[in-house]
């Protein structure tokens, strides 16, 4: 029995037979999140892949109370559920499970508003870096050089730094995570569960359909996103950042796998130009520079 199963049991809250694509990491993430959060979780689903994954009425892939809401409503509807649970005297965790489109773009103000109000909810952004449900269009999360149907020659310009935007809200807890490191993810969810107030978890969720890799490669792609330094695993309490998991040792660029090892797994980077590749590497290096600054700030504030 694996360590994960021992820790969080065998109960399944995402039911088999759901409508996800083979190799979908969003549903994998949800499954392992719910194992930690358990039965009394109220799931809020905005327009996203998840609104399809749960299946068509009268069927559902959800064994917990689940509420579908408009695209830009996840954080605000979750806030409403939280307040109402309190006033009617019901216990439970409220989980908003939204994609990057809902988080970076259309719903940004609602996520920001709920964070600022310190709503007692967990907001998870499963980031497949495109509008995958509508057939892979560029979102605010799409990385430099990546193909989408609306960036046929590769995305130009830098994506939004959503994790640090949320860290800058100085919420009680925020973290990035990867489906390649489920132990790390579940520890963070557990951490979040035990804290009151607004908690934000941002999971990079490789998408077979949008990133164009075989369904069998999801975990490999996820791991490689971290090992190349493309995706940084960290957590922050009140904006104080610390690296976690493999990212701890990847502060040292020489310990990172070459970026190529991540790019070559996915056909969305098949036609990336040398300029775009250079820009992408510069962007990654800059993310790490920012991370260093943040950590120095953190160390300076230590007593």
């Amino acid at each position, binding site marked *: 029995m694996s360590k994960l199963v021992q820790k969080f049991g065998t109960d399944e809250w995402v039911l088999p037979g759901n409508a996800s694509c083979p190799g979908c990491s969003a549903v994998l993430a949800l499954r392992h999140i719910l194992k930690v959060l358990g039965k009394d979780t109220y799931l809020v689903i905005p327009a996203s892949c998840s609104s399809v994954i749960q299946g068509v*009425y009268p069927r559902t892939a959800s064994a*917990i109370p689940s509420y579908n809401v408009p695209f830009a409503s996840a*954080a605000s509807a979750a806030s409403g559920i939280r307040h109402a649970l309190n006033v009617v005297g019901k216990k439970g965790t409220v989980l908003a499970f939204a994609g990057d489109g809902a988080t970076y773009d259309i719903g940004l103000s609602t996520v920001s508003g709920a964070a600022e109000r310190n709503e007692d909810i967990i907001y998870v952004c499963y980031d497949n870096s495109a509008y995958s449900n509508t057939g892979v269009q560029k979102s605010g999360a799409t990385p430099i050089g990546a193909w989408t149907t609306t960036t046929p020659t590769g995305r130009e310009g830098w994506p939004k730094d959503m994790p640090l935007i949320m860290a800058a809200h100085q919420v009680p807890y925020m973290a990035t995570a990867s489906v390649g490191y489920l132990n790390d993810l579940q520890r963070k969810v557990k951490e979040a569960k035990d804290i009151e107030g607004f908690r934000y978890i941002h999971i990079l969720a490789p998408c077979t359909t949008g990133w164009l890799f075989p369904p069998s490669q999801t975990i490999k792609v996820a791991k490689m996103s971290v090992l190349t330094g493309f995706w940084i695993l960290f957590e922050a309490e009140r904006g104080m950042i610390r690296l976690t998991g493999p990212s701890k040792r990847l502060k040292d660029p020489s310990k990172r796998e070459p970026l190529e090892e991540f790019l070559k797994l996915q056909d969305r980077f098949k036609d990336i130009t040398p300029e775009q590749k250079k820009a992408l590497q510069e962007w990654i290096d800059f993310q790490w520079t920012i991370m260093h600054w943040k950590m120095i700030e953190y160390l300076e504030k230590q007593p």
Partner: protein
Amino acid sequence: MGKIELLRGNYAASYGAKLSKVQVITAYPITPQTSIVEVLANCCASGELDAAFVRVESEHSAMSAAIGASAVGARVFTASGSQGLLYMAEGVHWAAGARLPIVMAIVNRALAAPWSVWTDHQDAISMRDSGWIQFFAKNNQEVLDTIIQVYKVAEDVNVCLPAMVNLDGFILSHTVMPVDIPEQEEVDDFLPPRPPGAPYELDSNNPMTYGNIADPTCYDEFRFSMHEAMQYSKKMIKKTTREFERKFGRNHGALLEEYRCTNDAEIIVFSMGTMAEEAEIAVDILRDEGIRAGSAKVRVFRPFPTEDIIRLSNGLKAILVIDRNLSFGLGGAVASEIKASLYQEKRKPFLRERVMGLGGRDVTAEIIAEEMEKTLGMVEKEEEVVIYE
């Protein structure tokens, strides 16, 4: 017996919500609505009202949070109007489809462009097909009473639809009138708390998924069930109005309020909101001149009081409909609904429609009386009807 106080329309709305013991309030400011939520903020802060007051960051979120809260089974109140109502439009439709008995006060205000803060009904009329029960009040007493009444209608297990109570911006919202504020015990007796275990309720002991994809084999049934609930709500509105009158001695009309609509009336003016108050004075003026005039206030725009309108039109020489909204390329919304209601009738009175009072332009009793006289004059001459001059 309650106590009589001088109240602005917005305060009347706040007190209506407070007396209804709402449990969650989602609040976002917009002129001329803002003081409704300000009063409620004070009530929550002072402990007079035991409710969660959620200061959201937009009207879209005000409705989304209301949706979440109502889904758990709380009694929810919010307020908006104009651009705010349009900004939350997605959630407005959603709340009805999700069958949540949210009550929202709408302080009617004209839509931009150009900017206007003054009243007309374009905002609410644009939500006509959202599945919300739509009340229009003509005075501040009616605002307060309607909010209490409408929770009872909306929360009925056979209705489960949201409702908006409309009041004209500034004309009601910022104007003081004497309002009889009922005692809390009396209201409690009339309106018990929202019963737990309502249909469509989120509960981890009975985990259900709501709002997931309904394919073409069942979507249609969901929508028609809303239509049936809306039709059924007519009965509930009538029943609730009677109960309210028995308890509090006030009746603002159920779906439609009649004023001097006698059997021998030759003309009736139909209107909504504060224009109906003016129309009643206009009727008095005409009656003094010997013209057998009456006024009918369309109190509920959805569900539409088709049956009442057919009954009232019987034997009339003419109908004047004044609309404080304009469906560009057609005319006034109330007029077109009345025309549609009368289509199947064999004998129809002459009908003239006028669109007036847009963006807060004053519509006085004298103007309405004049329009009614003109309408009667046109019956003989068979003049072409123009909706504005």
